């Protein structure tokens, strides 16, 4: 009987790409069987934490920084860099804490501005443009309970003069946007809904989603704000307390291989973390590509975010509460 390995994936098109770019090649290569549970980072994390006595995942993928908490709580296993053949090619920031238990990032969602390229006039180019009265009640903000929303907010905070120790400028800015008629959503489908149905023009969200919308036939475009592009890292983590960690490590290694990342970028417009990844021009235009492109990415201190998440969410809630 073939060995099996259990992981989570994010469903829908993501899962399709995941299967095609990583899982199927992995199965072919190792003869093992990969069993997938469709679960987003938040849900997967909750499941991991609750199941601590009998974890079912071998590899768990996070996109919202949950690996930091998970590693702290000992739910994840430290990774010996030597066991990952591709680790050397991965940008440093994407494999900084392997020893603590945080797995390597295998793709990056770039947070920027999604806009309707037919209706939005002028087209936005910078985060500051969100304040443009012309967009007023056509702006969609994402709730910071959503990982992308958090990064978007921190960016708004930053361009308004705040930093991770002081988010008040960000809150004030949001408050003003809301007064002008901006709306807040908390899940991606709602963003689609707003763009498709409700005359939304601009949203701060991830590049991959812009691509999803475009594929669905909506006139959406994506731009990296001039002030910088917050990066959301998608990590592949090794779960503690599982029997076949070697196989799991092979899968993680596969995830950070150039081929897999190229495939991902091609299909979903995620930015690769492996420096050796080769992308076609058209794809490259949509993502943060190469040393240069990656340099433009802003990485807010994840430790600080985790430490403050609760308090920020509280403050945010109060700000947006009607």
């Amino acid at each position, binding site marked *: 009987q073939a060995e099996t390995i259990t992981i989570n994936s*994010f469903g829908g098109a993501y899962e399709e790409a995941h299967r095609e770019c990583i899982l199927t090649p992995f199965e072919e290569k190792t003869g093992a069987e990969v069993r*997938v549970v*469709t679960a987003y980072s938040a849900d997967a994390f909750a*499941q991991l934490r609750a*199941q*601590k006595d*009998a974890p079912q995942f071998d590899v768990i993928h996070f996109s919202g920084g949950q690996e930091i908490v998970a590693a702290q709580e000992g739910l994840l296993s430290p990774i010996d860099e030597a066991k990952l053949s591709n680790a050397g090619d991965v940008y440093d920031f994407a494999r900084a804490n392997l020893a603590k238990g945080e797995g390597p990032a295998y793709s990056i969602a770039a947070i920027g501005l999604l806009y309707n390229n037919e209706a939005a006039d002028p087209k936005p180019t910078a985060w500051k443009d969100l304040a443009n009265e012309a967009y007023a009640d056509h702006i969609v903000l994402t709730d910071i309970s959503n990982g992308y929303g958090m990064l978007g907010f921190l960016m708004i905070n930053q361009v308004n003069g705040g930093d991770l120790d002081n988010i008040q400028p960000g809150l004030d800015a949001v408050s003003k946007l809301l007064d002008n008629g901006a709306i807040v959503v908390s899940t991606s*489908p709602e963003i689609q*809904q707003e763009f498709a149905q409700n005359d939304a023009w601009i949203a701060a969200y991830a590049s991959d989603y812009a691509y999803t919308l475009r594929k669905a036939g909506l006139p959406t475009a994506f731009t990296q704000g001039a002030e910088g592009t917050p990066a959301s890292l998608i990590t592949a983590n090794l779960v503690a307390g599982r029997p076949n960690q070697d196989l799991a490590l092979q899968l993680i290694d596969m995830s950070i291989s150039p081929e897999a990342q190229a495939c991902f970028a091609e299909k979903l417009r995620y930015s690769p973390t492996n420096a050796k990844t080769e992308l076609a021009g058209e794809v490259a235009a949509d993502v943060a590509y190469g040393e240069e492109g990656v340099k433009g990415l802003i990485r807010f201190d994840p430790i600080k975010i985790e430490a403050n998440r609760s308090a920020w969410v509280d403050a945010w809630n109060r700000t947006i509460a009607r």
Partner: protein
Amino acid sequence: MVRAVSTPLRIGAVAFVVLTGIFLLAPLVVIVGVSVSESQFISFPPTGFSLRWYEAVLSSDAYLNAAWISIQVALLVTVTSCFVGGAAAIALHRRKLPFSGLLSTLFLSPLVLPTIIYAIGMLMLWSAIFGPVSVLTLWVSHTIITTPYVIRTTLAVLSESDPFLEEAAQTMGASRFQRLRLVVLPQCLPGLAAGTFFAFNISFDEAVLALFLRKPGMTTLPVQIYGQLEFSPDPSVAAVSSIMIGLTVLLIFVIDRMLGLHRFAST
């Protein structure tokens, strides 16, 4: 009765039913509309007409497997909660147990707590004791959250029953079990039927427990839909829902034709 209801009231009643119907069905019409849309995304009014989303759903293993699992779980859950809840309701109705007032409130408590709390608690306990989750976990926990419906609807119906009937059966030699089966059960039927329907439906549409208490290969339909919506929302979810609507109507219609459900509904 002779002109039991005056004409204006009758008209009012018809208007009331029609308006309620519109209110209840309008979103469903939207969904059905969306499901035949040609476009990739969920929008209304639909652009163009195509059945491609139905085709997509009916040829998708993920959807079909999920639906099959959901149906199995829902059937198991319905049967269990029907028995467990019906029996408990009868016992509570008789009010011969100590604290039956308190008990009947406590039996509501699974509805009071947001399911996520229960889901996490259940997952923690289950992993600590039994290890990996299985269909059994989902079965048990769905039974927990559906039983209150059966209890409530059955209790309500029993409150209007003739107390002498059971006694009469008793004097005719009916044993406890026979009394339950031949006298009390027929009395419970309308309530039990409603409760059972709720149970099936709740289990079939339950996403939170199913989301947390799952393992590879055990994805229920609501979780599947939820996943589809989150990452690539397309009209296929509307098609799934439309199929469910259609199947419900068809099923009820067929059962009615075969068993005379409408007569049943009148007891």
